[in-house]
């Protein structure tokens, strides 16, 4: 058992650190009013972060785990974590398109055609073209295979796409989206799905910001009104959309498993908020709660290292990584509650980081799979408990929809 770098890892860390030392002055400074030249405008921030992602890619600090032939470094997850740690330590932004590079690019590498790989991967890696993930729908979240966005093949082999997606991060400035659509409603629901590449500037695509509790719009709704797609837009074959989507979700778990603390919900930050209150830090009840919350959040850090160890050995992290997400979100909710109890109404002031966090967390409980569906999956796949009886097995999707009282 050892948390230290091997000589090879130490050499890699030194190489990353040295690159960052040389280039960190070129990184954009965001949202720090004390810093001259700090960016405030969202458009400017995105433009600057795209340029910075390009530089990171040129320096080998983006797509660390991507194969070399697609512009990556061909390294393992441990090097990815070392790279993330060094970027954080240098206090510079990471890549803008973490969803594309972390989840969608690897899906295209696994399932895409050679044309798709050579066309899309390079610009994705360099931030020239940002991507978004078009999976969730208003009526398909936990039950993702219930997507209703419909793609119909045309006589010329191309497709026409209609429907709606939701909770889409980065859609407002994305060039492309990876979209899960129903292509056959007359087979059971997992079988009639196909994955597509969708140009976000195509005619009939409408992106609308989705404001949340905090008032900010971090996500979008995306509408598709008879959007024309080329025959070559299919990723992984017609009718294979579910298998392709599972690949993306597996990379999502890896991303969460390795980067959970990147959300900023860590014991040190919460302890600092309590430490600044001379009375609260001596209060037995406050201390007990802080200790309990912090212990669980500390555990998540080491669960991440366990995940990493498994990845290094070539094992694929299972759904149990979802438990870390449950711990992080609920721990942060309790921490926000505790800090608000200590600070009083000021914790809810408009410019308070805690007001923002408190507003963001109830939605995060459902992001990347609701807590309930995660517990179902873990109960079944990890503990081996029997599944809930299902009413949708083996039934064509069109019949299911009519049973639910809606047209397919």
């Amino acid at each position: 058992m050892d948390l230290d770098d091997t000589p090879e890892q130490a050499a890699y860390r030194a190489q990353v650190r040295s690159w960052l030392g040389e280039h960190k002055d070129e990184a954009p400074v965001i949202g720090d009013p004390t810093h001259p030249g700090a960016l405030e405008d969202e458009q400017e921030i995105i433009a600057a972060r795209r340029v910075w992602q390009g530089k990171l890619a040129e320096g080998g600090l983006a797509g660390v785990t991507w194969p070399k032939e697609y512009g990556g470094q061909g390294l393992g997850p441990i090097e990815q974590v070392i790279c993330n740690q060094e970027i954080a330590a240098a206090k510079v932004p990471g890549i803008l398109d973490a969803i594309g590079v972390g989840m969608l690019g690897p899906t295209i590498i696994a399932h895409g055609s050679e044309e798709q790989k050579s066309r899309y991967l390079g610009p994705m890696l360099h931030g020239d073209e940002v991507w978004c993930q078009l999976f969730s729908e208003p009526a398909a979240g936990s039950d993702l295979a219930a997507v209703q966005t419909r793609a119909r093949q045309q006589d010329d082999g191309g497709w026409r796409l209609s429907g709606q997606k939701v909770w889409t991060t980065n859609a407002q400035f994305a060039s492309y989206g990876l979209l899960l659509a129903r292509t056959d409603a007359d087979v059971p629901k997992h079988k009639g799905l196909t994955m597509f590449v969708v140009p976000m500037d195509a005619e009939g695509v409408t992106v609308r910001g989705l404001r949340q509790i905090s008032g900010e719009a971090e996500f979008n709704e995306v509408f598709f009104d008879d959007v024309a797609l080329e025959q070559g837009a299919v990723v992984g074959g017609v009718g294979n959309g579910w298998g392709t989507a599972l690949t993306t979700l597996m990379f999502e778990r890896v991303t969460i498993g390795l980067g959970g603390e990147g959300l900023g919900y860590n014991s040190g930050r919460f302890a600092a908020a309590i430490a600044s209150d001379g009375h609260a830090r001596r209060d037995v009840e406050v201390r007990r709660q802080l200790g309990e919350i912090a212990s669980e959040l500390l555990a998540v850090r080491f669960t991440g290292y366990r995940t990493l160890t498994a990845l290094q050995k070539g094992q694929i992290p299972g759904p149990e990584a979802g438990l870390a997400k449950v711990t992080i979100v609920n721990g942060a909710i309790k921490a926000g509650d505790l800090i608000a109890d200590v600070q009083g109404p000021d914790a809810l002031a408009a410019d308070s980081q805690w007001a923002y966090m408190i507003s963001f967390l109830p939605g995060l409980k459902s992001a990347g799979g609701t807590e309930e569906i995660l517990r179902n999956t873990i109960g079944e796949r990890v503990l081996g408990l029997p599944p809930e009886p299902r009413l949708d097995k083996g039934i064509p999707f069109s019949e299911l929809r009519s049973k639910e009282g809606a047209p397919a």
Partner: protein
Amino acid sequence: MNLALSDEQEFLREAARGTLSRFKTLAAAREALDGDEGALPDLWPAACEAGWPGLLIDEAHGGAGLDVFDAMLVLGECGRVLARVPLLGHLPASAIVNDSPNAAEWVGMLASGERRAAYLPAQPPSDLDGSWSADPAHGSLRAGLPTAGAADADGRVRVDGRVAFVPDAPGASGFVGVATMDGDPVGVAVLSDSPGVAVEPVTRYDSTRSLGHVSFTDAPAVLLDAPRESLVAAWYIAQALIAAESLGSVETALEVSVAYAKERFTFGRAIGSYQAVKHSLTEVLRQLENGRSLLYYAGWARNGAPAEFPLAASAARSVGGRALDAAARTMISVHGGIGATWEHDAPLYFRRAQLSRRLLGGTAGASDRVAGELLAQADAA
């Protein structure tokens, strides 16, 4: 980076499981609960045969020279089957003696198990309270440590005072812990057959846990020359060990509950298929996995980042103690009414959970210690 068990550690764990499987520990626990304490097998000979008494003693002194993490693996196996192996008392004591050059004559006997020691739990000062303290025999006010008088020419002292709820005190050959001398902490070792030493065996709720109130009246003791860090570390070693033991019990409680949830049917289907049951079981798994990760943290920090060992061990205790409470309660609930009967094993785990959470400063005390360590880190940042 490698946060996984080595082959040797896997072997140590499997061997411990094999050793303990030779005894019907759960049946004995039930008989003890029915009043026959003599039913509990003496597991010390088996522990000696397996080399456990010397786990934390250097090889040069006849020990195994292993780490706290290895000892945690053994305690986890004890916890799985509620085995009464007096390691929680012996191992922290052996670590102090191992770090005391002037106790060299004893360390070999402790390593072989020829002599068994019990640790006198002494909680180091916190950010709120600058003094060392011991668990009280009653109530919430923490007690002071025994006091040691001036040392004679041979380095012997006289000790006075009382330490309550000492794990594995009955039958121990000697006691090792901390006393205050002119207000400063010093390591002391007292043989149990010395004049002025009295051990009052106490049983509270869990018959598988051997405890005693130990009192010293002008009792002769050896002043140990262990460094202060060793006296501090012993407390956190005890925290890590009881955390590991608790998490071992969680493993069994969860396994038994899951098996039952698969075979018990209501309304035509296994109860484990209902979300309410499934989610309560995954909640136990969540707490167990968090606890395991913190055991790894503590095991690594002991040598890899000693300054973090108090935080890591306390966090493991905080999560481990709460996990066992949740696991035992869930075990009872999943089994329905039968889980709350005298005949079932679930109450044995429940009893273990309730008492363990209150020993050695308590799970709540460990949570407070986590807060104290993090507040100090925040001040330093």
